[in-house]
């Protein structure tokens, strides 16, 4: 495990800075509703570097208007869809929110499928679900039922201006949502222009089968998925730190957005029902 300070701050889209959930809403199956919160199931491991000025002062990214050169605050910019060259339709947050019919704002599990039957092509990102106060029993009921039947629940729902296809898995009594790609977001071999399948000679197939058998392991060991890039970066950082070369210190108010949060402790707290 990397020391706490080496973890990258939360990606803006994760917005788990300060321990806030990514999303809070309702999970339903049948007429049973389970109010839940979503927290990312992965930390961003990439060692992010900060942009600094000539004196080592941390810099900020800012929008500016090209014609006037004037910096713009967030309330001076809007979201626009380009309908024709340099012609935009402005769409507000409120409109995006209102465009989602009420029933689409819940994760309504209308279907359950064998948990291992979904091809990995679909999976995008994982989130743990934690029960809201008072919904622990319904949460456990769903988790235990899915665990026993080895089923995953499927739903589509709208969150933050985007519709998501999700599969909900029960993982040792804890519910986990995996967002998935829609079928029309995956290309087919024909889309790519891959050649049609040619029957391979039996001897060649069995040569590969032997190669596979010779290197087969019973279990997957994630420890092999090391991040060499971060490792070597951290090594260099240590070396430079020891030599005190290129170390700068600036007086900086600790801004809460940049504070590193420990996702595991946030999740544990949220699962235990403590605020």
């Amino acid at each position, binding site marked *: 495990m990397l020391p706490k300070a080496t973890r990258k701050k939360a990606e803006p889209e994760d917005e788990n800075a300060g321990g806030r959930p990514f999303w809070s809403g309702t999970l339903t199956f049948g007429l049973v509703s389970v109010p839940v919160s979503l927290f990312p199931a992965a930390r961003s491991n990439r060692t992010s570097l900060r942009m600094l000025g000539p004196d080592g002062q941390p810099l900020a990214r800012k929008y500016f208007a090209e014609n006037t050169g004037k910096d713009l605050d967030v309330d001076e910019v809007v979201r626009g869809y380009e309908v024709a060259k340099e012609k935009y339709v402005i769409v507000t947050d409120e409109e995006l929110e209102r465009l989602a019919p009420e029933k689409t704002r819940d994760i309504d599990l209308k279907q*359950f499928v064998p948990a291992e039957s979904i091809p990995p092509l*679909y999976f995008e990102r994982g989130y743990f679900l934690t029960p809201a106060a008072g919904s622990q029993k319904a949460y456990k009921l769903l988790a235990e039922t899915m665990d026993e039947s080895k*089923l995953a629940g499927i739903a589509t729902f*709208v969150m933050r201006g985007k519709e998501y296809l999700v599969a909900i898995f029960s*993982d040792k009594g804890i519910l986990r949502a995996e967002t998935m790609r*829609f079928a029309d977001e995956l*290309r087919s071999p024909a889309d790519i222009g891959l050649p049609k399948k040619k029957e391979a000679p039996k001897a060649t197939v069995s040569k590969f089968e032997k190669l596979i058998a010779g290197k087969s392991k019973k279990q997957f060991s994630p420890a092999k998925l090391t991040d060499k890039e971060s490792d070597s970066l951290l090594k260099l950082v240590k070396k430079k730190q020891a030599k005190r070369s290129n170390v700068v210190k600036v007086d900086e108010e600790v801004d809460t957005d940049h504070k590193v949060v420990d996702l595991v402790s946030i999740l544990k707290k949220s699962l235990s029902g403590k605020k």
Partner: protein
Amino acid sequence: MAARAIWKGELKLGATKVPVKLYSAVQDRTVRFHILDDRAKKRVKQHMIDPDSGDEVPNEEIQKGYEIEPGRYVILTKEDLENLEPPPSRDIDIVEFVPQAKISQQWYERPYYLGPDGDVKDYFALAEALQNTESEGIAHWVMRNKYYSGALRAVDDYLFLFTLRDANEVILADELTKPAGAAPTQKELAMAKQLVEMLEGEFKPKEYKDEYRERVMEFIEKKAKGRAPRLKAVKAKRKTAALDSVLAKSIASLRKEKRAA
């Protein structure tokens, strides 16, 4: 229209090499917006400023730093970062194979198609062998100055390479504790099981459509013509009743639906 390969490499299984081309398997259909200057309704640009003075800092004066503790940075020069880059290579090293479904969904990041580069015989033979043995290869490779870990899999006769997340990145359920609170009763569990089984089926991905995307696009088109419809405000949520009575009602209404169908 055929897609362009984004990279060329060689699958390396021991002494055997299978040349392949890599293509993205994903076609993102998210509605893309631009950030506009509200006054001029023109696209904005971004630059880096010193938050204290508000002055722009030009690119050539920007340094990159790794924060070792709040407010203390180790500067990494351009040369430092270049030296950290992995040596270029075309090899996709397949280090071992595991049975399919041993890798949990959480690890998968992005799928790529592999297509044959030249000879097709080895390509389709390897795909067939992976399918016959129901196994998946664990791969390491360097692409565009970055290290990658991934999984090699055959799906419907074609080879796929998935990038996998790093070990430090994924939070496993083992690290967490189950929620506290009262356990459901046997009766409730039996009813929930019955309910879930009534909703059980096969995974048919084409049945799920991104209707919201269509709704947003339709709204944009109408607004472009100056005929934006009035949208209803979002209402607050309602509460629900006791667990066992809700379960019984759900089962009853599903039965009714099935009978009607």
